[in-house]
């Protein structure tokens, strides 16, 4: 059967998909890690910029990741040798602010198997939906302090070396905790790598 076509999320999704400011509870917010969640706390933050360098202030960013031990909370990841964390779902949503900024409070994901059962470098999957985007953009966030794992990652290896840095979040050991900085350029000379997934 022919797949259904995507259509833009438009500018007016917040009261449904990120409805906290409307006094309603959504399915997921931008805080993935609670007090009970196991693992290294981290903040993922950055700005979403259009082809002219202007902030995209009305976009929806969604993230999906494994827990700190490297297990996804999903039936397709049935590896009982790696523990699930009852205090972690791995899914988050954030609407960008007037500066185009998004922020997620989470834990650093563990490594999960990839092709040929080789471990992938730690990463977070990311989807960008926005007014002006008919189809979403699908990306991955890797971490700057995982150089060795990144060097042997089979997905990063598919990306031309000059563009790989667009997929790597820069670690900052800030006084309040670990922050990874990840700006997303939808277009332009610094365009972030997006995947056909």
């Amino acid at each position, binding site marked *: *059967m*022919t*797949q*259904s*076509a*995507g*259509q*833009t*999320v438009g*500018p*007016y*999704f*917040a*009261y*449904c*998909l990120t409805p906290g400011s*409307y006094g309603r509870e959504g*399915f*997921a917010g931008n805080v993935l890690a609670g007090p009970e969640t196991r693992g290294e706390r981290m903040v993922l933050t950055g700005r979403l910029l*259009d*082809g*002219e360098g*202007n902030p*995209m202030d009305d976009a929806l960013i969604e993230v*999906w990741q*494994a827990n700190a031990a490297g297990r996804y*909370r*999903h*039936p*397709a*990841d*049935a590896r009982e040798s790696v523990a699930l964390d009852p205090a972690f*779902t*791995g899914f988050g949503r954030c609407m960008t602010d007037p500066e185009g900024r998004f922020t997620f409070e989470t834990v650093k994901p563990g490594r*999960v*198997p*990839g*092709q040929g059962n080789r471990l*992938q470098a730690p*990463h977070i*999957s990311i*989807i960008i*939906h926005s*007014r*002006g985007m*008919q*189809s979403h953009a*699908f990306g*991955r966030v890797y971490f700057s302090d995982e150089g060795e794992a990144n060097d042997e990652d089979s*997905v990063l290896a*598919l990306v031309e070396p000059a*563009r790989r840095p667009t997929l790597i979040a820069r670690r900052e050991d800030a006084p309040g905790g670990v922050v990874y900085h990840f700006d997303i350029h*939808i*277009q332009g000379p610094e*365009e*972030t790598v*997006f*995947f*056909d*997934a």
Partner: protein
Amino acid sequence: MSEEEALQSRDWTVQPPYLCPEYKSTVVRSPRKPLVPLPATLSEMTGPVFGHDAVREIDSDLTRNGAVNGAPLGQRIVVSGRVLDEMGRPVANTLVEVWQANAAGRYVHKVDNHDAPLDPNFFGAGRFFTGVDGSFKFYSIRPGEYPWANHDRAFRPAHIHFSLTGPSFVNRLITQMYFPGDPLLPLDPIFMGVPNAAARERLVSRYSVETTEADFALGYIFDIVLRGSSATPMVG
């Protein structure tokens, strides 16, 4: 089934390209470099799973879930359909979220400043899970058309936004449902951005006498096909 067989990539003969110049805000918001093909790993074959206790029965009735002191104005409708994969198999237990303008073409959203009245009894958002046969049903009000700044005298055709999480993160779909016979459809660059007629037709609901509820609501049927297979892949 191998991981590769389990995942169909996006069909770009069906999916709108990022750059649709007639839809003006795509010009600076469209990725231009080639997408990198991504093999399906556990990261792609998994995705959020939600507990059914997260929705209540009233969440699928937009005629009641925003009511303050009466019923919302407008034509009551009941929208039903099925969520299927490309093999035609039902996608069960998947989260569907819907949002729309009220009968006058105004969204509750704080940045919608269109000069049309809000309806104190209409919020315009709902959510539900598909059943084991992929089916869903919700009640609402027929949304109004509304103007937008894309071009001279531009009005969006009446539509309801749909968000589906699907069985895994790569099945994610956000789309819009339209109404049959709407004269604005061929003028709408968002709808016309879908590159082939059969795929556009899939986004237009059909009126159904069978699902129309006597003395109550007009019935529309809208089926959604998620890419790939909903079967659980063998991994590891």
